[in-house]
């Protein structure tokens, strides 16, 4: 489903070049569950941005479902993002003035799904994530766990095939964190490709495939026997 070939990205801090991604090769199949770990500045976030079509590489090729994405124009990349990719962020990034349901409807509104249909889909997603009663609440009236569920509902409401999560439990207490992780993994069980970027070793170990990055390179890519902590 995803094919990265020699993807490079260099940032400049002053006159110092930082190789955030250094000829990264990675191939991900539909339905995989990956975790990406590594120290700060190792290029994890840049990789996530690349996969999410939020950033363009300096060199290399990235095919998503057979489409070469690096040569697409911005509106086409936006469309692909809207149809195939869902994001979950550490800081939730809910729009504070919109209610939970309005936040969830936002990606559907952007592509022009009629209001009635939007509402039904949003309510479905909320019911599924256990926040059915919270539709009319503003983000500030919700707990951290509830906010992340709203963000998750927003990420999956368009039924993306790839879910990218950047430290999804970083701002949550361990119990709400565990609940959110369970929900995300449930989605993976249903076939969504899941990629979690995290510092949390326990969370990282849960994934079937574990990638470790250092200095913009993939230094480890382990599959199989994971020791899930209860």
């Amino acid at each position: 489903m995803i094919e990265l070939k020699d993807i490079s990205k260099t940032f400049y801090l002053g006159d110092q070049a930082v190789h955030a991604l250094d000829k990264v090769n990675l191939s991900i199949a539909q339905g995989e569950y990956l975790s990406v770990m590594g120290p700060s500045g190792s290029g994890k976030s840049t990789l996530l941005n690349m996969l999410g079509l939020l950033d363009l590489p300096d060199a290399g090729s990235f095919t998503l479902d057979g489409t070469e994405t690096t040569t697409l124009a911005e509106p086409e990349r936006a469309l692909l993002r809207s149809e195939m990719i869902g994001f979950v962020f550490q800081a939730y990034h809910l729009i504070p003035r919109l209610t939970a349901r309005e936040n969830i409807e936002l990606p559907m509104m952007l592509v022009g799904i009629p209001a009635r249909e939007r509402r039904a889909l949003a309510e479905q997603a909320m019911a599924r994530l256990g926040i059915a009663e919270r539709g009319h609440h503003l983000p500030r009236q919700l707990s951290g766990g509830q906010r992340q569920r709203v963000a998750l509902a927003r990420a999956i409401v368009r039924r993306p095939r790839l879910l990218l999560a950047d430290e999804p439990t970083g701002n949550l207490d361990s119990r709400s964190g565990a609940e959110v992780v369970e929900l995300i993994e449930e989605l993976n069980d249903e076939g969504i490709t899941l990629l979690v970027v995290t510092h949390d070793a326990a969370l990282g170990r849960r994934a079937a495939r574990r990638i470790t990055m250092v200095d913009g390179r993939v230094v480890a890519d382990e599959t199989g026997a994971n020791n899930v902590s209860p």
Partner: protein
Amino acid sequence: MFPRDAAQYCWQAISRYRFRSAMVLLAISLGVASVVVFTALGEGARRYVFDEFSYLGADVLAVFPGRNETTGGLPPVTGTAARDITLDEAYILQRRLSAVEDVAPVVIGSADVSFGERAREVLILGSSAAFVDIRQLEFAEGKNIRSGDIRKAGDDCLIGETLRREILGSNPAVGASLRVADYRCRVVGVLAGRGDAMGMDLSDAVLIPVAAAQRLFNTPGLFRLIVKLAPGRDAETSRQQILALMKTLHQGEEDVTVVSPDAMLSSLDGILRTMNLGVAAIASISLLVAGVLIMNITLINVTQRTEEIGLLKALGASTRQVTKLFLLESTLSCSLGALLGLVFGAVLVFAARLLMPGIAFVPPVWAPVLAVLVAVVSGAAFAWVPVRRASALAPVVALQKH
């Protein structure tokens, strides 16, 4: 995205951040209102000057004592004469020149007017019955003073409406006997409205025969002499005739100025041009201030929402879509602010008119149009810059900008 959804999204951004939006709207409306108010003040002043100086009709000449050698300048309105124009001379002018249909000599001053116990110091205007015709004044009740020999001091007088209310109260006006200093007169008519003339408010004045006024103020000279020409008479020829006759009467000394409406207007022209420039300068400065104000507000507003722009992109919006959304929002709030500003400005202009009823404060038509245009255009233009910048950022970078 449906236009309706886009509009709703923008409306929510305005209506759900009440304090911020109130401040934004206040700033924009102040900008627009200041343009409306300042141009209205400027235009009001311009019109005031215009009306004050162009009261003369096409068939009316004004004779001032004194001679101004410089032509094209303002006539000596204040009358600093070496030699007076007397009432007798006015009478001679009226009798001798066939071009002169009637004359209205003018003497002004102020004196205490009393009726019974009540007294009030008001403007006293000494003139003739012709004054009312020339100035086209109307009567609230009664009739004009007697016309006839202007040299005779009749005992009838006219009063303005304000004076009538203040001093007569509910007593019948026509027939009332007033004391003006030590001169007694009988009210024959009440002038309607303000009847503004030469900056005088006739609603709070008494018009008495000119000879009586001369006696009252002990002055042999006239403040000015207004001449009404006979129908079909050429203004310039008549002007020369009057000048020639006055020269003879003043022993060959050409020491009066006769102003025709044309001369009046051409000297006015310079003043009006300056006033027009003044209004334009006021308008451009207030438009500039409004534009800069709106520019800053919009820049700050959009820059603060870099995170939201990044999020929208992560959720599948294209740069174009985000730009459109924010431009729409900026245009919406600027239009709202501008509308509010127009209302605000109209209220202030109305208040100014109540405070100074003598001046017609009206903004020129282009002022509100231009003000709204500047508001909306600068709102859109200065939203565009930071939106482009924010949406050019990789969304994740934008998202990190808390």
